[in-house]
């Protein structure tokens, strides 16, 4: 039959299917914002623990503390959504700013002595992120290494390089341009906080409205189905690894700016908080589920907990234990509400 033949379509059902089911939309937002009541409770608890809690300077302090973590959480969330993960983001978080700082700082403050232009240093930071992400992406996606063990090894390697390079010393006395992100404020709020808010916003919009963002959900939900639909699954997954590593490097730069130095230990153990924030925020470890809005509530929760613990008089050696307990409680709560996290 040729195309000219008049095609009799069966008379279609007159009513078109509704685009959105209101109940589903509400349910999804409800799930996304599961942690909001917990955050409210924490804030009340915070103000009871110490009157300083509700001061502007303290709240900005909370935001600043969460900013660097948040940057890495955005990065990890992107990878988790495509069904993989990267433990070595914490290594990049430490090593990238360290390398940049080393190349621009004078010898006296543990630099190499080349004293490069700070802008070149910033470029180096981004390039380190790019290189590590590309390496991880190709080996995990193309060479099919197990993401857990491969990025774990990478993490150990990067952290080890960071430590060994300078023999455990701290690079300090960094030029203004280099620490700008962490040290400066716009309208009374640190640049790092603005930047993290921007990262969350862009990620949220990209994931929701961009075709690659939607393809990432398709990949995370069912890799083979995405492949069979002609989505370039490998290219996108490698790209996500690269973007995530660059974000982690920027996060590290923010952290360095905040303390105006790069320590040999920057980034170590960061990744556990990152996973915790993403998962209690509703990003599924299986891939394909969750939104960065939820991950943001996870970051806020963790930042609040850290702050409140510091303000209370709990001995600092106990902070980790309390931290862990609160993450467990948040997970339990999420389970009760019936979201599929953890």
């Amino acid at each position, binding site marked *: *039959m*040729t*195309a000219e*033949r008049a*095609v009799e*379509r*069966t008379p*279609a*059902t007159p009513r*078109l*299917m*509704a*685009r*959105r*089911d209101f109940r*589903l*939309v509400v349910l999804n937002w409800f799930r996304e914002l599961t942690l909001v009541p917990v955050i409210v409770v924490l804030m009340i608890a915070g103000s009871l623990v110490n009157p300083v809690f509700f001061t502007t300077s303290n709240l900005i302090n909370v935001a600043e503390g969460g900013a660097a973590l948040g940057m890495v959480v955005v990065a990890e969330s992107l990878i988790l959504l495509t069904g993989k993960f990267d433990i070595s983001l914490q290594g990049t978080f430490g090593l990238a700013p360290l390398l940049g700082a080393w190349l621009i700082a004078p010898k006296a403050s543990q630099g190499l002595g080349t004293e490069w232009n700070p802008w070149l240093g910033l470029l180096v930071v981004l390039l380190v992120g790019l290189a590590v992400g590309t390496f991880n992406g190709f080996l995990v996606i193309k060479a099919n290494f197990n993401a857990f063990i491969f990025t774990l090894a990478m993490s150990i390697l990067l952290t080890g390089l960071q430590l060994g390079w300078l023999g455990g010393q701290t690079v300090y006395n960094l030029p203004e341009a280099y620490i700008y992100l962490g040290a400066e404020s716009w309208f009374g709020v640190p640049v790092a906080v603005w930047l993290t808010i921007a990262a969350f916003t862009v990620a949220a919009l990209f994931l929701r*409205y*961009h*075709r*690659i963002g*939607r*393809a990432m*959900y*398709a990949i*995370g*939900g*069912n890799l*083979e*189905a*995405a*492949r*069979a*639909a*002609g*989505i*370039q699954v490998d290219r996108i997954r490698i790209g996500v690894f690269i973007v995530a590593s660059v974000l982690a490097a920027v996060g590290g730069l923010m952290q360095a700016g905040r303390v105006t130095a790069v320590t040999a230990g920057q980034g170590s153990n960061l990744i556990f908080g990152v996973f915790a924030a993403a998962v209690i925020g509703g990003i599924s470890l299986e891939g*394909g*589920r969750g939104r960065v809005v939820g991950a943001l509530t996870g970051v806020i929760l963790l930042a609040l907990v850290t702050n409140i613990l510091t303000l209370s008089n709990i001995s600092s050696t106990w902070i980790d234990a309390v931290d862990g307990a609160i993450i467990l409680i948040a997970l339990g709560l999420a389970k009760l509400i019936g979201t599929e996290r953890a």
Partner: protein
Amino acid sequence: MQRFSSTGPATSPATVGEAENVSKSFGETRALVDVSLTVQPGECHALVGRNGAGKSTLVSLFTGLNRPDRGAISLAGEAAPSLADRGAWLARVACVYQRSMVVPPLTVAENVFLNRPVEGEGAVINWKRMRAQARGLMLEWGFDIDVDQQAATLTVEQRQIVEIARALSIGARFLILDEPTAALEKAAVDRLFERVRRLREGGVGVLYISHHLEEIYEICQRVSVLRDGELVLTGRVGDISQGNLVAAMVGSAPPRRATEIEAVGKVGSLGGTKLEVKQLTVGSRGGSVYEVDLSVRAGECVGLVGLRGSGTATVADAVVGLIKPRQGSIAIEGSVVPLGSVHATLRRGVGYVPQDRHARGFSPQLGVDENLTHAVLDRIADRFGFVSARRRTEIAQDEAQVLQIVARSLDQPVSSLSGGNQQKVVVGRALASKPSVLIAVNPTVGVDVASKEALLDALSRARDDGVAVLLVSDDFDDLRVCTRLVVMVRGRVTAHFDRAPWDRQRLISAVEGLEVAV
């Protein structure tokens, strides 16, 4: 051997397995209707029937995976144990499936005594005794296999042996072999037959399921034929000719679908060649194919027909680029496509409906609209890549209407739809790209009758609109939208049926790889 006493009094020798007037329905589908079948010790009883005839359901009743709605199952002459008592079932019956159930990292001996202490053993494993007993067992039944070998290194044939040995060692004397020769070469098939003979001599009863009818004549004593859930024929193999056996499987003359498959009435003038496959050779565990030539023109629907493992699905997967062929060329609209790239193939106007909707069909957590537009993401996005919600909704509403998808709304997750509607989403995803070539593998498998009609309608409409359709299917109902058939047996094209209507019996004989017996 005494046979033919049907379901006689209890004085007759105990059967190893018996189904007495069993019926089973799944939802609206009547999978089995009033079926009675006995397997006696020392007998090899063939069970044949086309896909969907009810064989798997009967096996699931015999192995305690399902309970019959009506009727009774008895094993070893006693009423069947309760479904929860897995141990009791395992001690009476075992089914060796096509998919292997051995644990690869463990040794043969461990696999044989999996989760079971050998005699005189407590919680601590006595390795020496376990090996000795496994070796003894192999010797007793004449199985030639090293019990210390790691199961991962075994061939398909050897894995079957391990599974049979495991069943025998638990005490089961009723074995169900589900298409045991599907993945075996000729010599291994001969050895398997020898083993079956030994088992029979040892008093084991075998229920033998196979599509290869010639095997049945070689090793079985009785044969039962299921068709549409009913037992249509049972008797001694020697009394039934191959022709009659095929006739029983196919069914004789219900008024409309007599011996001919109802097919597209007329074949109009066809357009140019849209898909051209030359000398395609692909290695695949799902069925390798050798030197397949195939071409599909605009406005025709070519049915690629074969048994599971015959390579028909492999051809489809290779054409869309999911598997990289060893050799051969694929051209879409006259231009050769790079092999092994789904993205490149689909971009040239190919729509693809994969074989297994759960594995490759959709992202379960996403909505109907998203899944319908996954193959056209680049087309519904602006030049910066941002997806137009309006265009997505338009396309989704269009496809939902054409395919009569039933969902509460377009954002309902596909995981919560019925199987039929899920399959419509998968077909819609392929059609949404307005393809010039459509490749569909078993597009109506496991869906209800109404969905099937809707899906086949959509396919024939695409065909009439000038799409070149390649339909891979082993369901003969699907073939009525085809204008021409190509039959594959064991990886090669063996027959062509160029003019509808087709004779059902000749077609089945060709598919089963038999000389035409009618």
